[in-house]
């Protein structure tokens, strides 16, 4: 690490002010940022810790029926507190990383970082959730803009994510054997008015919606419907742990398994 100062604001407003400093960097759970700092791959002047902001924590049911999760809420809290209302999301949170990661890492940090192999973006995109920041609300379809790229502006903080609760959902994950991040994972969300399918880990462009599968599943919600569908292997990541063709294949497998899990 290089030297830096630490600010620990108690409110979102104070955090926004602190982030106005040159080379300031927000930190939520730090599960990505701390290793990056230790490897000296980032050199912030000020680290603005968001973990002391109570207004950004917690899981609550909104008046419109959406499940609203504060940006500073840990995966472990989501796994426990979303289980009754949104088991698909709780199941995703319960399988991120290991217990240490789940007790430090937050939904806001994950969504803001938008790692192409992160779990949460799949749920956010597959449910058409709304990403709430300190100054606006952003629809999931507009929010994710490629690997590590989002609609967030400099100094903007994810304060909350509002999830429409699907009738049924499931997150199916095939892990990369070393990092245990998703090699390919698929979140399938079934709503009264249609199905949304989001894929993480696989694409060179980060999390994406598999619209062909959505259309097919909107017609008949069973895994046979998507059996013949494929994504283009050329768009998929190819690395030590799997070729683009393998990842493209897994997109189909994970999708079918998610659908089968929902149908029981």
């Amino acid at each position: 690490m290089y030297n830096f100062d630490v600010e620990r604001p108690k409110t979102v407003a104070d955090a926004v002010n602190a982030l106005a400093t040159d080379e300031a960097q927000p930190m939520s759970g730090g599960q990505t940022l701390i290793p990056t700092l230790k490897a000296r791959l980032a050199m912030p002047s000020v680290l603005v810790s968001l973990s002391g902001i109570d207004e950004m924590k917690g899981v609550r049911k909104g008046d419109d029926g959406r499940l609203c999760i504060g940006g500073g809420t840990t995966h472990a809290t989501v796994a426990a507190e979303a289980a009754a209302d949104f088991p698909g999301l709780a199941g995703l949170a319960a399988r991120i990383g290991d217990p240490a990661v789940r007790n430090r890492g937050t939904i806001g940090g994950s969504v803001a970082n938008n790692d192409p192999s992160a779990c949460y973006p799949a749920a956010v995109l597959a449910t058409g959730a709304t990403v709430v920041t300190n100054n606006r609300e952003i629809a999931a379809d507009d929010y994710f803009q490629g690997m590590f790229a989002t609609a967030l502006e400099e100094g903007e903080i994810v304060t909350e994510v509002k999830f429409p609760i699907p009738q049924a959902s499931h997150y199916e994950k095939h892990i990369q054997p070393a990092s245990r991040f998703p090699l390919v994972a698929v979140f399938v969300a079934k709503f009264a008015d249609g199905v949304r399918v989001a894929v993480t880990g696989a694409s060179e462009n980060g999390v994406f919606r598999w619209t062909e599968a959505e259309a097919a599943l909107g017609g008949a919600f069973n895994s046979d419907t998507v059996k013949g569908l494929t994504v283009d292997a050329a768009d998929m990541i190819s690395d030590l742990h799997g070729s683009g063709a393998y990842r493209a294949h897994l997109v189909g497998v994970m999708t079918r398994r998610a659908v089968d899990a929902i149908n029981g």
Partner: protein
Amino acid sequence: MPKDSGIGASSKRREDIRFLTGDGNYTDDINIHGQAYVHFLRSDVAHGTLNSVNTDAAAAMDGVVKIFTGTDFEAVGSIPCGWQVTDKHGEVMQEPRHPVLAHGKVRHVGEPIAAVVADTPEQARDAAEAIEVDISELPAVIDMKEAVRDGAPKVHDDLTGNLCYDWGFVEENKGAVDAAFEKAAHVTTLELVNNRLVANPMEPRVAVGDFARSTGDYTLYTTSQNPHVIRLLMGAFVLGIPEHKLRVVAPDVGGGFGTKIFHYQEEAFVTFAAKACNRPVKWTSSRSEAFMSDAHGRDHVTKIELALDADNNFTALRTDTYANMGAYLSTFAPSVPTWLHGTLMAGNYKTPLIYVNVKAVFTNTVPVDAYRGAGRPEATYQLERLVDKAAHELGVDPIKLRRQNFVTEFPYATPVAVEYDTGDYIATMDKLEEMADVAGFAARRQESEAKGRLRGFGVNCYIEACGIAPSNLVGQLGARAGLYESATVRVNATGGLVVMTGSHSHGQGHETSFAQVVAEMIGIDESMVEIVHGDTDRVPMGMGTYGSRSLAVGGSAMVRATEKIIAKARKIASHLLEASETDVELKDGAFTVAGTDKSVAWGDVTLAAYVPHNYPLEEIEPGLEETAFYDPANFTYPSGAYACEVELDPETGQVTVERFFAADDFGNIVNPMIVTGQVHGGLAQGIGQALMENCTYDADGQLLSASYMDYAMPRASDLPFYDVDHSCQTPCTHNPLGVKGCGEAGAIGSPPAVVNAVLDAMRSGGKDVSHIDMPVSPHRVWEAMNS
């Protein structure tokens, strides 16, 4: 009924109290007043000419004590290699200079170029970033077969090429082996890769150097499996410090697995720098540094062929292996693919004719050396995969084919120079078949298939050689060291004992098991025996712990020293008892006179030795302390039969090990619980190699698997509950305890069973694949299933 103490008892590991309560004393726990810290600037290119290293700006930075580059070490010796292999033409291997800091060229990613010593680790790292290095990159040689082609870039300009040696074993047998292949009824051929691994002990390497200006004494604290060996290698060959002025301490060490045997540049550096800076100097490896500076393991590319007659008897075997040495020769690197690999090629079988060729190759990669098993896993894997392949080609049961060709009479002289003293391969296979419930497999396969999974069953046998010896033989084979062990047993006046052993425990539990042996011999409580190791000032001499040698060699030295103690104590006792020495016997911690009720307790005898008032001073000296050196007559030859049952998800290629069985013959056993734990650990590393671990370079020599984000270490959840048995026991005939090594068996014996099981599962899914390389990752399985 199991014993509750002494030999054969599962005594609880006494060292675990300090390990599990955070009270261990590891090298990184050692901090010396006034110490400075070193940060190594390491090469980020695999091969290049080092034009200049400008340290001016860095030297002016806060806290910098001194900056060293390769020129500071021109007058210092090369990091030595401990084994010289002679090739098939009678020529000695090519042996390049291995500098402490790179000079003239860099030869692998991670090679240290400069070293900054500063007041704090952060200042050292800051200054290292300010060093300007000018390197003209050269084409890297990574692939071994490419490296030995004419015109390939040379790793070492002063050598004739990248071939370290071309070894033939036994060269005189080559003609007969080839002739046997001509006559064979069937020949099975297999080409395979034994994947490169990174040992990854939990504790990264650490070294602290200290120098006392007033006395000229050096001390090195280091994470080593063999502090005396480091004292000799570094003292005599690198820095020119005689043993009496150099103390090497290897305190608690958090796992070694071979990679902490070797003498590394960082040890020499901190020792050298402690004098040059007049301050203690400490280095603590980061995990990232460990990936690119700890010696790697395995990395063989092999073609192996088996000749069989019409009755499926093995008639000849020949192998052709390329073995990666990396950029420099690590301490025991040349011995691993030769004497620790070629000599094991007979396996459990009475194949009469064997020829082994090994080409050791320099590449622009981290040096490769011994890793748990060292040569024997490579031998076992190729042989046991080959036998399985032969069985399938011939349509015979793989177990039956193995049984038919087992060595059954002992001692057995193999055609590859070693003599197995004991073993019973039929017994371990019988035990394995009983444990593994082979008959129930069909039903288990049906259950898996009902879930959409394929199920496979694989077996293999293994034989390995532990406690490499004797010294005069290994000297002929090129070892530049003896391979004996020493022990000093010191009995204190009140009867407690301290055993100073040259073996080194870095997880093996010697402090418990060694004490069990001595306590049993004297008939006293284990708590009266303390084991001391890991300090050249406390232990007279030692060759250390590797190659599963500790109990067989170090334990035997301890037994010999204890026998001397008992002999002297008997003399003292006979004096106290006023009886003839021949009538005095030691039992349950007391000397008694046969046929009488006269007895003297152990503690009274030891007290007499140190308070010799009533004592035969004219016959024997006071005191009770004895040393023994033990040089074994032969290796020990543990063996066993392993079985693995996997489930395979044909859609994802994911393989899970559902059941694993190990039937081992380790001879006599001192502590069954510790032995079981050793097998468990070995299996984790063997299954890790088979399914997950892979150290990978790209064509430019960049290390792709340079962290746990890309190097897949097995976790508990990746492994099954093992079923381990060591009830088959054919005691070793040539050491006093009748013991064989058990530390590496699991890692040696498990990879072929896993791969054989995966191929069996694939066949049951209609895909007859003749081979799949390790690690058998989901991606590879899926590709093989869809090829």
